[in-house]
């Protein structure tokens, strides 16, 4: 069975309907900021208070979230609650609407409150969503130090600085 079509707006809608407070980070956040990036998943950073984690657990159940692995792209079912979700730093999941990574402390950040501070509210396919600032996306990707991020960082930094400086005439 192929992986479900990636429809992040549906993931956002379900999270929103359950009242989950979260910030979008990672490659999908970079795309929303206009970066020439392609990604097959969405990374969200939820607030870690018990009420929010319980809401997150309910939302994940509604979207039939399963644990994604390379060997099991259809996902492994797992039982969870707000409390059990908090016991792991990152969850790589596949849902009815595509891949979803839930991470509590992205590299170079201290999590939701840190990222929420400068987040921007955007509307994605009609769905309101808080997205980490481009500067914070860069901060996290720089700290993660993954090869695929290193390739993208120069252009993200150019975007932050408003573009490359004008070429100098040949001297």
């Amino acid at each position, binding site marked *: 069975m192929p992986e479900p079509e990636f429809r992040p707006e549906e993931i956002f809608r379900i999270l929103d309907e359950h009242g989950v407070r979260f910030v979008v980070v990672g490659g999908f956040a970079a795309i929303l900021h206009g970066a020439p990036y392609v990604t097959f998943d969405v990374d969200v950073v939820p607030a870690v208070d018990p009420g929010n984690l319980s809401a997150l657990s309910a939302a994940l159940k509604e979207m039939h979230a399963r644990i994604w692995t390379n060997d099991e792209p259809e996902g492994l079912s797992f039982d969870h609650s707000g409390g059990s979700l908090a016991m792991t730093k990152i969850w790589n999941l596949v849902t009815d609407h595509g891949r979803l990574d839930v991470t509590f402390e992205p590299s170079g950040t201290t999590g939701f409150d840190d990222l929420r501070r400068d987040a921007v509210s955007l509307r994605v396919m009609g769905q309101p969503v808080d997205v980490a600032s481009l500067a914070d996306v860069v901060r996290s990707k720089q700290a993660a130090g993954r090869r695929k991020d290193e390739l993208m960082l120069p252009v993200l930094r150019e975007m932050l*600085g408003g573009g490359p*400086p004008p070429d100098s005439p040949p001297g």
Partner: protein
Amino acid sequence: MMHHVYHGGMELGQFVREARRRAGLSQRELAARVGISQPQVARIERGSVDTSFRLVRRLVRASGFDVSIELVDLDDSAWSVAQTQQRMSIDARVRANRALLSVAGAAKDHA
């Protein structure tokens, strides 16, 4: 200590902010470490004042990081794509990602 590579278009102040945030420091704490005022740090981070590279490096180092500069070949192709992407609406950016994933999926199925 980690090293950051400087890329041309980025305002130097962004490096200061990024390093400070990663270190979990307030602007006031960082200012105290290098002996300048908190408003000065804020202005540097915003890019509202011209700042010497020397001072930027001091601030970054006071956050536990370092900045390195290197010459690289000029390549603005990714920036050209980014400019195109930035002229698109947010929904169009999402649809473009979906279309590219679809192409990638078709190529994978074909292989």
